[in-house]
């Protein structure tokens, strides 16, 4: 397979939690510039896969490659420094730090100066309509604002290549959802950032993603455009059969 087009390649990955196969022989390739959707019923192993890609968990079997280089087994911070950022299903912001401070850290770890980091942060916060909250502690923000902060925080990485998002639209207000979609499009077109997005919102996934991968009970059961997978009997079964 051509390594240049494959930004991310997951090869036969298995993740066991005790006797549970949370990810069961999953393979998938994401090309540079894609916005890939990752869908599947609850408990199908989406978050687990993200945690494997970003080095939070160790794979039980199989391997994960990024630009042709093996990244499974690397520390999360090393993976981050290679240009992979992520968000968490339940937003993980630094609650006792201010909104601005939250933004600065990923820029600092990637060697941006204070001045550069601050102006970039203010630009992004402005875009996300969070600028007037910049000196507030993150714990004073609403759930949706925290999700938004978590998302724009990842954009602070100066060499962001792959952005993995775990349910970025879950439980956020319609207006915030709009900003998130807008930022994804902007970074994809303007900065050539590749996205892997877990979401339950079929309409959003359909509008945003060129291609979707469907997981069910830890296995990859389908892949293709939203129309293709929506008509796949296995997928229909997975969603209707529970």
């Amino acid at each position, binding site marked *: 397979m051509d390594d240049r087009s494959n930004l991310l390649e997951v090869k036969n990955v298995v993740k066991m939690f005790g006797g549970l196969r949370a990810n069961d022989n999953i393979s998938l390739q994401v090309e540079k510039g894609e916005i890939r959707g990752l869908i599947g019923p609850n408990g199908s192993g989406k978050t687990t896969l993200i945690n494997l890609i970003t080095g*939070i968990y160790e794979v039980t079997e199989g391997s994960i490659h990024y630009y042709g280089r093996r990244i499974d087994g690397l*520390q999360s*911070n090393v993976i981050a420094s290679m240009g992979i950022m992520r968000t968490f299903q339940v937003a993980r912001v630094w609650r006792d730090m201010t909104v601005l401070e939250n933004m*600065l850290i990923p820029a*600092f770890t990637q060697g941006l100066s204070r001045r550069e980091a601050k102006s970039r942060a203010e630009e992004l916060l402005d875009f996300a309509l969070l600028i007037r909250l910049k000196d507030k*502690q993150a714990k004073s923000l609403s759930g949706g604002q925290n999700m938004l902060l978590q998302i724009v925080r990842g954009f602070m990485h100066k060499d962001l290549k792959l952005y993995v998002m775990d349910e970025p639209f879950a439980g956020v207000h319609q207006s915030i959802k709009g900003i998130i979609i807008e930022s994804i499009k902007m970074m994809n077109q303007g900065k050539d950032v590749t996205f892997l997005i877990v979401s339950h919102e079929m309409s959003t996934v359909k509008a945003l993603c060129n291609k979707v991968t469907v997981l069910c009970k830890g296995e990859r059961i389908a892949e293709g455009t939203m129309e293709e997978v929506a008509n796949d009997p296995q997928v229909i079964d997975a969603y209707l059969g529970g």
Partner: protein
Amino acid sequence: MKIFNLKNIGLLVLLIVAVFLPVVISDYWRFVLTIAFFYTIMAASWNLLGGYTGQFSLGHHTFAMIGAYTSTLLMQKAGAPFWVSIPAGILLTMIISSLLGVMCLRIHGIYLALITWAFAEVVRNYFRLHYAFTGGDRGIDSPLIFGTMKPTPYYYLFLGIAVLAIVLIAVIMRSKIGYYLRSIRDDPIAARSMGVDIVRYKIFVFMVASGLAGMAGVFYGHSIGLISPVMGDFNEMAMIIIFVVIGGMRTQAGPIVGAISVRYLMELLRAQSEFRIVILTAIVILIMRFFNGGLMELFRRLKKWIRRDREGPVSAYQELEQKQG
């Protein structure tokens, strides 16, 4: 940021007062303050480790003990001069603490506290039991660095190293590393995912905090003239935490305010002897209940209260506080 803001001017005034204070106080109080400066370093460095970074170590006092014993034993048993034994004492605490830091990498919260406490007990018992070498419970004479029992030079020595330690901690906390340390305490998983090398900074903070404690301990020995395993008593650790909590955890002035005011209070209550600890504990409970942020929180509220009279508009902080009730 302005250099001549109110806070910095206040600090400068405090420093000038501290420099001239010995002129107007007795030898006894000079000695009391010297000890208070020792505890200021211990409290400030523990705040860096346990407060800002969330590495709740219960072995911090032990590093002062290791520093003190190393330097003293090198002089007494190997005839080393001060300029060798003092750096050696500090260096050894940094080496041992980074090893302990590596051991504690994957350990959090209560387990970290337990491991560091066990480490502290092992070290303390080592010094107690190897009496042929360490003098056991009786302790060992430590050569006085100024060759005199008069407290004034020691006062300035400890004032100097306390300022040094506080400045070093302030510089670290304002640097990028300071952001990383706070992010590690707040949410280590988020920190790792956002590129923070938490392994490196956890070991770094262990090494710096313990190195400062080691430095304080080395000079403590050479100022008091006698060191003993009492330095390793858990009481010492408890006092350090009390200073930080009363002063204000995770604030820069908190440990200083805490250490000096509580040491002062303890002197005033000297006649009460063992009852002092009861009074202190009661104060800690009151502070935890009403001023979670310690004395610094009290100051902040007072300041806010005075400002509110003058200014009126509700600040973001007040808004937040009202929301939380």
